[in-house]
């Protein structure tokens, strides 16, 4: 590993794009801190998505594709939130990449 994040006196290995190398290092605090490094303040709306992603990953061992995410968010949190526009407003670098990073999920391999 060639990169790391220093937080609360501890060093966390990451890859070049800032994804945690060890998923077990994740905590809400490190998520907040990683977001701050990207000039992003995580509010309740962000956390709804992050918590959803973590629960999805826990259950299925995969990060959902964006259209699966939007559909599922719409079903769980309401139709007004179940669209990619809403998700891109929260995560301007792309919900798959950015939200997965703060949620401590593996980096999407960018297969499509």
């Amino acid at each position, binding site marked *: *590993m060639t990169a790391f994040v220093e937080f609360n006196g501890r060093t966390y290995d990451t890859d*070049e*794009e800032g994804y945690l190398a060890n998923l077990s290092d994740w905590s809400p605090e490190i998520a907040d801190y990683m977001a701050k490094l990207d000039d992003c303040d995580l509010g309740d709306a962000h956390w709804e998505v992050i918590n959803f992603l973590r629960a999805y990953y826990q259950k299925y061992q995969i990060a959902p594709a964006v259209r699966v995410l939007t559909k599922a968010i719409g079903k769980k949190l309401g139709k007004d939130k179940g669209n990619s526009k809403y998700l891109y407003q929260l995560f301007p670098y792309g919900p798959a990449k950015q939200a997965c990073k703060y949620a401590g999920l593996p980096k999407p391999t960018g297969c499509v």
Partner: protein
Amino acid sequence: MKFGIVINEGPYQHQSSDTAYHFTKAALAAGHTIVRVFYYHDGVNNGNNLATPPQDDRDIVKRWSALSKEHNLDLVVCVAAAQRRGIVDADQAKRSGKHAENLADGFRISGLGQLIETGIEADRLMVFGD
């Protein structure tokens, strides 16, 4: 007719890369088009230019590169499979902080979506593997 070729095994370990190569050559000779050759699973090792087979054996990696040059073939290595197995182009090496790149001439790394697109575009999809 448009063929898509999928290769799921690495060179030397299994004959499937050889069979795919001879099929591809025969299809080109018969005037057909090759939409793409897609390398998946251990097939991504067909794009490893660090391979150095002995002089009295065929050079499978070079053979694909040469065929690609001659016929302008699109040789695509799956990114997810390549990352697992350490097949890396210059861009990937930079982004993942690796010291080396080893993708052979004529190959490019791209997503699995290219496999699905090959299936959509080709009249026949030929799968070679183990």
